[in-house]
């Protein structure tokens, strides 16, 4: 079948060449490479938190309350005598988890819907367009806060809330992509050849929008990481004794006068983590998107 479908083979060799090119172009961008390295570092730390952290995140020492940084406690201790460094390490788990899973979930919701709207058009398209409009009519944070309140405060529910909040924008993007890809010659050719819709979507449309989706994912992750922090800060995300950077900030808020460092470190962690993903995403966009050349 594929032998008589000329577009496929041409496309494949083209893709391999393109991949090499992309790698070369990516490596020429120091900020993007740095972003990739730091993002990977955060993921590794999150996975190996038990090994990296010197203390358990909830191990409190009531005789060591609000201790200053020392060799024993690298970043000092918090208001319950817990090791701040260990909590940052453990907190990365919740943040990365929320960031990555919320993004994956949002993609899983948004891409099929967007594809259907853009590829089939007809009555589905305006219906989905209106529904996306409705979702976009509510400020993202209000949706997330309401959902977290409805579902009950937990990391899982915060992740779901963030995913649903992020979905409408992704629906629009994948719809747009599907819409324009549908007009490409090789898709038209496939349709003319009588290929099934599923096959066309899987073999021609989806692979070609992959780069856009990857770029979107890398910019959605940092947004979700910050979103998780906001929800936890409002008491709607991760719950004690589990920790996340947002929880740490929320705890630190009462001690801004006495120990501002308690608020400084987790904020820096959020900042560096989301910056790394944003740098990575920005680099990928430049590299993958043929329209931007620099």
């Amino acid at each position, binding site marked *: 079948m594929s032998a008589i479908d000329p577009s496929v083979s041409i496309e494949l060799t083209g893709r391999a060449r393109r991949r090499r090119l992309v790698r070369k172009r990516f490596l020429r961008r120091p*900020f993007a490479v740095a972003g990739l390295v730091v993002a990977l570092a955060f993921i590794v730390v999150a996975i190996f938190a038990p090994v990296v952290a010197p203390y358990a995140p909830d191990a409190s020492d009531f005789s060591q309350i609000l201790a200053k940084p020392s060799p024993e406690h690298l970043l000092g201790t918090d208001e319950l005598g817990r090791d701040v460094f260990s909590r940052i390490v453990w907190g990365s788990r919740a943040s990365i988890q929320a960031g990555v899973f919320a993004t994956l979930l949002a993609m899983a919701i948004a891409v099929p819907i967007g594809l259907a709207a853009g590829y089939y058009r007809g009555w589905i*398209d*305006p219906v989905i*367009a*209106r*529904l996306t*409009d*409705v979702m*976009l*009519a*509510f*400020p*993202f*944070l*209000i949706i997330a*806060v*309401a959902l977290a*309140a*409805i579902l*009950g405060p937990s990391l899982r529910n915060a992740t779901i809330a963030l995913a649903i909040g992020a979905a409408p924008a992704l629906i*629009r993007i994948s*719809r*747009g992509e599907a819409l324009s890809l549908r007009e490409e010659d090789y898709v038209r050719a496939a349709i003319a050849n009588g290929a099934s819709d599923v096959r066309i979507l899987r073999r021609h449309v989806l692979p070609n929008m992959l780069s856009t989706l990857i770029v979107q994912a890398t910019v959605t992750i*940092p947004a979700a990481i*910050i979103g998780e*922090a*906001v929800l936890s*800060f*409002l008491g709607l995300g991760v719950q004690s004794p589990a920790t996340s950077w947002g929880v740490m*900030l929320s705890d*630190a*808020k009462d001690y*801004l*006068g006495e120990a*501002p460092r308690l*608020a*400084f470190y*987790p*904020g820096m962690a*959020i*900042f560096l983590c*989301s*910056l790394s*993903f*944003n*740098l990575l995403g*920005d680099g990928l966009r430049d590299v993958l998107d043929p329209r931007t050349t*620099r």
Partner: protein
Amino acid sequence: MGGFLLSKLGAALVVLVISSMLVFLGVRALPGDPATALGAENRDPAVMAAVRSKYGLDDPLPIQYLHWAGLAVRGDLGTDQRELSVAETIVDRIPITLELAGLSILIGALIGLPAGIIAAYRRGKPEDYAATTGALVGLSVPHFWLGLMMISLFAVHLDWLPAGGYVPFSEDPAANLQHMLMPAIVLGTGLSAVLMRQMRSSMLGSLSADYVRTARAKGLPERTVVLKHALRNSLITVTTVLGLQLGALISGAVITEQIFVIPGFGRLTIDAINQRDYTLLQGVVLVAAAGYVVVNLTVDVMYSVLNPRIRVSSKPA
């Protein structure tokens, strides 16, 4: 044009009606009985029963919805748990958030637009890299944390600015601005990153457009070419983006108002959720959604007036 307007208006109405249903159901999906919230510490059963009957909580949902929507259409959003008019409360609060949003847009534009213009004009040069990286930094900073850090530095340690609170502009303009400065910077810097990126890409487009090339060919000074011809066209797109940022601004206002103790729309929302104040919460979220729909409609219409091609090519998106 008329048909285009009508279809846009129709779509907006549909969105508004579905939104109102979602608001209504969402509020009722919140766990926790509002009668409990109003039953006082000893949760007197007689009081709770009276509360249920006053707010019609025992009626079937469709009846409750129709009752509420019917009154809402006439501008009556009911009374909240303090026995105050929800509509009046919202009208009181909107200017506060609008002021915050306005100042944030001002700050965002003051930083973002020049940076975007320079980055586009000096494309590929160090200025461009500085601006684009700066924008990424702006997008990566958690704004509520920036707020906390600013409070810690400028209010608690240096004692230069008030840590939070709000003074109406009409009462004391100077104090009003003092209170608004930090929150507006916090929200504005985030916005500036978005605006910078938008400005840069749209300027890049304009600078390579034919009319700019023509203007250059005619020997017009570079300044005029960039600032008059290219910029004017880019501003149209950027304004559109600004309109679409309203939702993000309100989201930002929720947490910013929380941190800086500003009695705006965002804090009203969080308070209403926490107190299970159904009537207040419904009203607040409905008005927020309606605001977004109206702004979008305006932006759509304005855009199509400024750029007639869109009318033909625009499809529901």
